[in-house]
């Protein structure tokens, strides 16, 4: 049986049909760490943003590729889905023309992998923020 202290530690249940958890999820996807920031977890938000953005910037600086969706190659499409997880950094990078040079060196290939990993890590972070918002994970 939950004690009074346990009950107090749990976040308030969102109202049925509340858009708040979805807002947290989308914000966390678009801007790394934003989901946790909305929830008031600013230290976690700062660490997540620093880790994810640093890895993205290093990936681009290494000459990594930002995938596009319309090459027809299944692996490129998978790469694009992974990259898209990075949210706005990926979109801004694509619009700025970054990551378009052919990957010719091993170092640039590391960069490509860094960017894909960033997308996946950002999705994990956004889902974590969503889990906290709906009360599935203790705050």
């Amino acid at each position: 049986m939950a004690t009074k202290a346990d009950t107090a530690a749990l976040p308030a249940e969102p109202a049925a049909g509340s858009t708040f958890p979805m807002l947290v999820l989308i914000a966390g996807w678009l801007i790394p760490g934003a989901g946790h920031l909305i929830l008031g977890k600013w230290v976690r938000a700062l660490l997540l943003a620093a880790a994810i953005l640093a890895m993205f910037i290093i990936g681009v600086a290494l000459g990594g590729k930002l995938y596009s969706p319309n090459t027809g190659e299944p692996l490129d499409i998978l790469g694009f889905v992974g990259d898209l997880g990075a949210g706005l950094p990926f979109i801004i990078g694509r619009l700025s023309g970054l990551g378009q040079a052919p990957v010719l060196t091993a170092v640039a290939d590391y960069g490509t992998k860094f960017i894909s990993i960033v997308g996946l890590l950002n999705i994990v972070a956004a889902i974590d923020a969503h889990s906290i918002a709906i009360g599935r994970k203790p705050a």
Partner: protein
Amino acid sequence: MTLSHFSAVLICAACIGIVFGITQRAEPKMMIRFGAYTFVVLVAVTIAASWGMWLIKH
């Protein structure tokens, strides 16, 4: 910008460790422990796999 394979592994493992630590555990102390554990495991497995590939080649 250039990186050695090893420094790339260290950066990658550090970033993954931070994200996994925060997202996979609820208590701050456990977050630090799990983040450090993830970092060590990723680096150790990469080094072991590298030596494994070297042994296969030779």
